[in-house]
Structure formats: C-alpha cells, structure tokens
C-alpha cells in the first residue's frame, strides 16, 4: 500500500515549491538539532509534512550535523587522530559516548559539590563549639565559680564556717540534739 500511496501523496503536495521557497535554513537546522519549540516548530513540521523537498532538506540538516562537526574539528586541528579512525558505526556511537561522559562528569561534579560543601561546613561548626566552650570556661573562671574554694576566706586550721556555728558538743540549734558532728 505504502509505496503507491507515498508517490501519490507526494505528487499531491501542490505547495511543495512555495513551502521550500519560504523555509529558513537556520530554522531547519534548529529543528534538526532539537533547538526549535513552540508555534514556530509546529509550523515548520506542518510544512515538512506537506512538502517532499522540505522533508528531504530536513533529513539532510539532521544527517549533516555529525559531518559538519567532523570537518570543523579537523580544520581547527582538534581530535585529528580520532576523526581519521572514525567509521560510520563509531561515528554514530561517538555522540552517545559523549553524552554518557557528560552525564558522568555532571554526576561527579554534583557529588563533589556536596562533599566539598560538607567539608567546608564541618570545621565551622567545630570552631563554633570550641568558641562556645571556651567562652563558658572563661566566663566560669571569671565569675569565680570554678575557682572559688570552700576554704577561701578562712584561715588555715579554722573549721568550716557552715559547720562551726556551734561549739563542739553543743546540740543542734534546730533539733536540739547532737548529731555526733556528722560522724
């Protein structure tokens, strides 16, 4: 069915010449390279569907991308050795490999970015804690909490003031009995 119908349909595309006349090569390349979107893309696809010549031009635009990149790279002196050894099979596989390499590089960069950010954040937290702890210790020392001794303020040999409010052997002022001096 398809061959006869194809010829009949292509012969029926009476706007072929007009559509070809109005096409912009840059837009056709943009479409072939996946850079065209929106109404402009829809109009161009519509035109391609209605024009066998435009469909042929689109196919060439699509297929000539790799060829053009190869020629440009070799003219610029890049990857000459690789290009020389390119076969049709490797030529089609090369962009696929480049996409994988790009994806791997992006993934590595993302992981690296997370790692580096964590590394940069960790010392900052430690330093902060150290500063806080140091401040507490310093403050405590300054306030005398840590350095104040129960012996401070009484002469050597004096009894503890707390427990020396009564003479040895006296009864407790509150309970009026001896607790044996705590023994």
């Amino acid at each position, binding site marked *: 069915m398809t061959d006869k119908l194809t010829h009949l349909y292509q012969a029926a595309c009476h706007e072929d010449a007009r559509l070809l006349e109005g096409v912009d090569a840059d837009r056709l390349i943009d479409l072939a390279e996946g850079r065209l979107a929106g109404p402009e893309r829809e109009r161009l696809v519509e035109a391609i569907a209605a024009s066998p010549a435009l469909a*042929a031009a689109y196919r*060439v635009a699509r297929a000539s991308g790799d060829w053009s990149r190869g020629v440009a790279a070799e003219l610029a002196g890049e990857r000459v050795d690789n290009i020389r050894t390119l076969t049709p099979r490797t030529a089609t596989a090369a962009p696929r490999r480049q996409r994988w390499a790009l994806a791997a590089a992006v993934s590595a960069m993302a992981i690296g970015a997370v790692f580096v950010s964590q590394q940069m954040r960790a010392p900052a937290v430690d330093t902060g804690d150290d500063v806080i702890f140091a401040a507490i210790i310093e403050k405590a020392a300054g306030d005398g909490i840590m350095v104040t001794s129960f012996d401070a303020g009484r002469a050597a040999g004096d009894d503890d003031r707390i427990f020396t409010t009564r003479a040895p052997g006296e009864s407790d002022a509150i309970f009026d009995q001896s607790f044996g001096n705590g023994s």
Partner: protein
Amino acid sequence: MTSGSDLAAKLNAVLNKHAARLRVLVAQHCSANQGLDPDDIEQEVRIRLWKVVEREKNDALPASYVQRVVVTTVIDALRRGKPEQTVALPESGQEAGIEALLDPIGPVRSASDGQRMDMVRAAIAELPSRRQQPVRLALQGFTPEEIGDLLDMTATMAKNLMYRGLYELRDRLKAAGLEDIDDD
C-alpha cells in the same frame, strides 16, 4: 600566520577526506525523489566553504556554519530543481485542456492524476486530527522514531497513530473508488 593558499590547501585536504561521506548523505536523503546530484552538491559545498576561508583568512569554521553551508546548498539545489509553476498560454488555434490550466501541479499531469491526488488530500483531511500529521509524515518517508521526534511524542505512540491512520486512509480511498493503491 597561515597564508590564504595554505588555508585553501588545508580545506581541500580535509574536504577530500570527508567528501565521500557527504555524497552518501545527500544520495541517501535527496537523490531518490528529488533528483539531486550528490557530486554537484559536494562541489558546491566545497566552493562555498573555500570562499569563506579565503575571505575570512581563518580556517576555524564553526561546525554550525559548515552545517548551514551544506543545508543552504541543498535547499538552493532543490529550489532550482522545482519545475516552473507558470503555464504557457496555448498558441492560436491550439486548445488547452481546462484541467491543465487549473491544475496547480502543471499541465503534464492528466486529469485522472489530479482527481486521484484530490481524493488523497480529501481522505487525509477526513482522518481524525491526531492521525493526520503522523500519516502525512509517514507518506514523506519518515520512520516512527523520526515522526515521534518531530511531533514530540514517543515512537510507539507515533507508530500506533501512523498505522491506524494509514489503514483508515486506505479504507477511505477504496471506498471512494481508488482500488489500485495497494503495492503489487
């Protein structure tokens, strides 16, 4: 600094190496239905690139520019290959068929060809709108994968719409009296 002749020689050497692939590319996509000569296209691309290199005195052509040269060369060749749309007036005493004058394709096609084409156009226009574009693109020779890319849908969906549309189109054309559309 590289001289102009050195640049031209370098471009020639590079193009000599890649010329065969360009000819194959053009032959695959253009020569069958459009009648383009791959050798002519390759020569034209070579000349245009050579002119640019000579003018710019720079051999660092961007790939996008090289691709643009190829595509514009092909489009220009396709435009040159299109038949004139004007119809010569009949000489005195010579009758021109009314169909020949009205047929936008040109006078070379018979009235029955014109009727068959009208039937195909009408039958496609009667298809469900979702199937029309996949059918048109399939009849331009695109694969389901290519149709999917163009219409921004999966290849499976494009294939489904394409085949359903083609079968429906065949049934409509047969119902309209176009019996000989099946391949032998």
